[in-house]
């Protein structure tokens, strides 16, 4: 008891100090960010969110208000993500939550923000269930997994063949991509999977599967995994002697730069769907590529970067339209105003593959803003990889919903 009391007194004291510091400044729009600041890529585009908000401040803020951004790392762990969200909401008293980048972290945070009535905008989580929870407070900038699968399957069925082997890693995004793809192949072409193997999230040795796939004689292999795992699998597929004529299909994380960097030549010919292609020839995309290259030393930005950038732009537009009081009495009202302002963003076309539009209803149709997937293929692997755009497909709003 004695020590508990003591410890809790200490806790209390600490709470008083930080609590006061956090609420001292009014007139600021407080934005909390929780992201997976673990991988190199993750850290860089997390930093990009912060940098972009800083630039808005340097340019005079929004309607005279400055932005106060707090960035926390959730390591892609749901309990840490929830703790971060709570810390940001209750301690930092944020007006808007940005995050997370992992589906398994975004999923519980959706419940937290729905309950505390804080608008949440997601930079990069594709799991379908996030917007299907019916929260009126969540917005998704990236393309939902259900759209990706539809586009991918259509292309595969029409151009490659129907006999596809699947290697699916056990992380949430890859599982989702893999299952959705199989379902789409079935519903669009009636094609059953030729071979399916669930592998662990960070599997390093795929030779057993490659040997089996080799003897199964398939038209294509879909490798749904996080970047590094996918890269290893790609390399090992060539080592096992599966010829280049068998197409390699990536899940959406194939756009991450570690894939071509680690896989090297094995990345050549891999195609995937993403929300942005560095090979995009619009002037805005050229400028963006150059900016990311200079600021973060990234050879060619993937869609994580474009989505982070688009997210900041969307937030900027919404905050500009919202009528904010920014004092402690109006915290709840300001949060609602920001939510409504985001819901009013229509037809935003920045770097995103398609126009991003939100609306007020708490449905996936309203909250999955981007419906356009770009089909991309690597034409050269290695650290100086090159991609090409195969197609750009916009899906109907209801696609993939039951």
């Amino acid at each position, binding site marked *: 008891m004695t020590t508990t009391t003591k410890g809790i007194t200490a806790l209390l004291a600490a709470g008083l100090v930080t609590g006061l510091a956090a609420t001292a400044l009014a007139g600021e729009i407080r934005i909390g960010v929780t992201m997976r600041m673990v991988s190199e890529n993750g850290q860089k585009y997390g930093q990009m969110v912060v940098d972009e908000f800083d630039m808005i401040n340097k340019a005079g803020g929004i309607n005279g208000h400055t932005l106060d951004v707090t960035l926390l790392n959730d390591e892609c762990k749901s309990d840490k993500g929830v703790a971060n969200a709570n810390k940001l909401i209750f301690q930092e008293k944020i007006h808007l939550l940005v995050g997370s980048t992992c589906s398994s972290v975004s999923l519980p945070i959706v419940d937290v923000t729905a309950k505390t009535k804080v608008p949440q905008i997601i930079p990069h989580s594709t799991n379908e269930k996030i917007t299907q929870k019916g929260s009126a407070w969540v917005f998704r900038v990236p393309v939902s997994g259900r759209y990706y699968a539809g586009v991918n399957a259509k292309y595969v069925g029409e151009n490659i063949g129907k006999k596809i082997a699947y290697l699916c890693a056990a992380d949430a995004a890859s599982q989702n991509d893999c299952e959705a793809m199989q379902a789409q192949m079935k519903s669009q072409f009636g094609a059953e999977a030729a071979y399916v193997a669930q592998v*662990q999230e960070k599997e390093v040795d795929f030779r057993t599967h490659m040997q089996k796939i080799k003897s199964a004689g398939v038209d294509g292999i879909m490798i749904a995994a996080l970047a590094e795992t996918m890269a290893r699998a790609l390399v090992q597929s060539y*080592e096992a002697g599966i010829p280049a004529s068998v197409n390699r299909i990536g899940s959406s994380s194939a756009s991450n730069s570690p894939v071509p960097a680690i896989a090297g030549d094995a990345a050549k010919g891999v195609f995937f769907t993403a929300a942005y292609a560095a090979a995009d020839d619009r002037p805005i995309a050229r400028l963006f590529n150059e900016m990311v290259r200079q600021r973060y030393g990234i050879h060619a930005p993937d869609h994580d970067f474009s989505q982070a950038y688009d997210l900041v732009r969307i937030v900027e537009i919404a905050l500009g339209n919202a009528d904010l009081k920014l004092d402690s009495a109006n915290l709840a009202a300001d949060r609602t105003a920001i939510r409504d302002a985001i819901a009013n963003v229509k037809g935003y076309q920045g770097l995103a593959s398609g126009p991003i539009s939100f609306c007020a209803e708490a449905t996936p149709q309203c909250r999955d803003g981007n419906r356009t997937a770009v089909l991309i293929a690597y034409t050269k692997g290695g650290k100086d990889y090159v991609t090409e755009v195969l197609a750009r497909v916009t899906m109907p709003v209801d696609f993939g919903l039951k």
Partner: protein
Amino acid sequence: MDFDFTSLFAFILFGLTIGVVYGIVALGISLIYSGLDIVHFAHGEIYMFGAFFGLVFSEHMGVPYPLAILSAMVCTGLLGIVIERVFYRRLTRAGGGYTVAGMGMIICGFGMSVVLQNIAYLSWGADAEPFPVDLGEPFQFGDISLPKSYGLTAVIALLLMAVLHFFLKKTKIGLAVRAVAANKDIAFLMGINVPLMISLIFGLACALAAAAGVLIGPMQSVQVEMGYLMLMKAFAAAVVGGFGSLPGAIVGGLLVGIFENLGAAYISPNHKDIYAFLLLILVLMVRPSGLFGVEVRVKA
């Protein structure tokens, strides 16, 4: 459908080639166990450091691959000696094995693994680094193709074992090392510099882990988090072979490699890591002394 013997052969071959690497790490773990009476939980991170050292030498400094292996071994060995001298020595002096200090050693090992992993992350970043080594076209056994790096790994592993065997059995220092492993008190009375030998054992074990790290680089790329899984497999290998038994470690490694590959191929691939654990637990429960281990006598 007929049973596909080619595939079975392939799976066993894959198991053997990765098992050799488990075996080398297990060899180090076993060596430490017999020399210091501790199970080193940070050995996975030592292996990871070895891999990164190899990468730095080979990719960034342009040292030829075989030389890179040697240099990485030396650097990692020295790193190990420093860690052992600065941190572990106080605990091992208080007694390893079953004592309360032994429990401290386990916790200390965990702490050290976290520290090393973070240091590696700060130095080399979180992303996996490719470690391409061009050895030419893969070997072909009928329908099975095996990249040369796997063959090279097997050869180097055998070479390392032979050198270690020669060192322990035929050299004077090796004899001293074995004496220390057998009984420190008696070794001390025989005039052997026991602390120095302990450092040497630890350094050797770390060098072996480094060799494994550099060897596996071309197959699986190099990453900060690579240590933990390898540690588990190597533990399983060391236990299966019998803690403290050097040939046991290699045989254990091969068995773990084959076991998990067959499990992944014929039972279920996403439980792959569980098979190694399963084997570990099974062997511990049925025969804690492993295949080649000697039954430990309880001193009453």
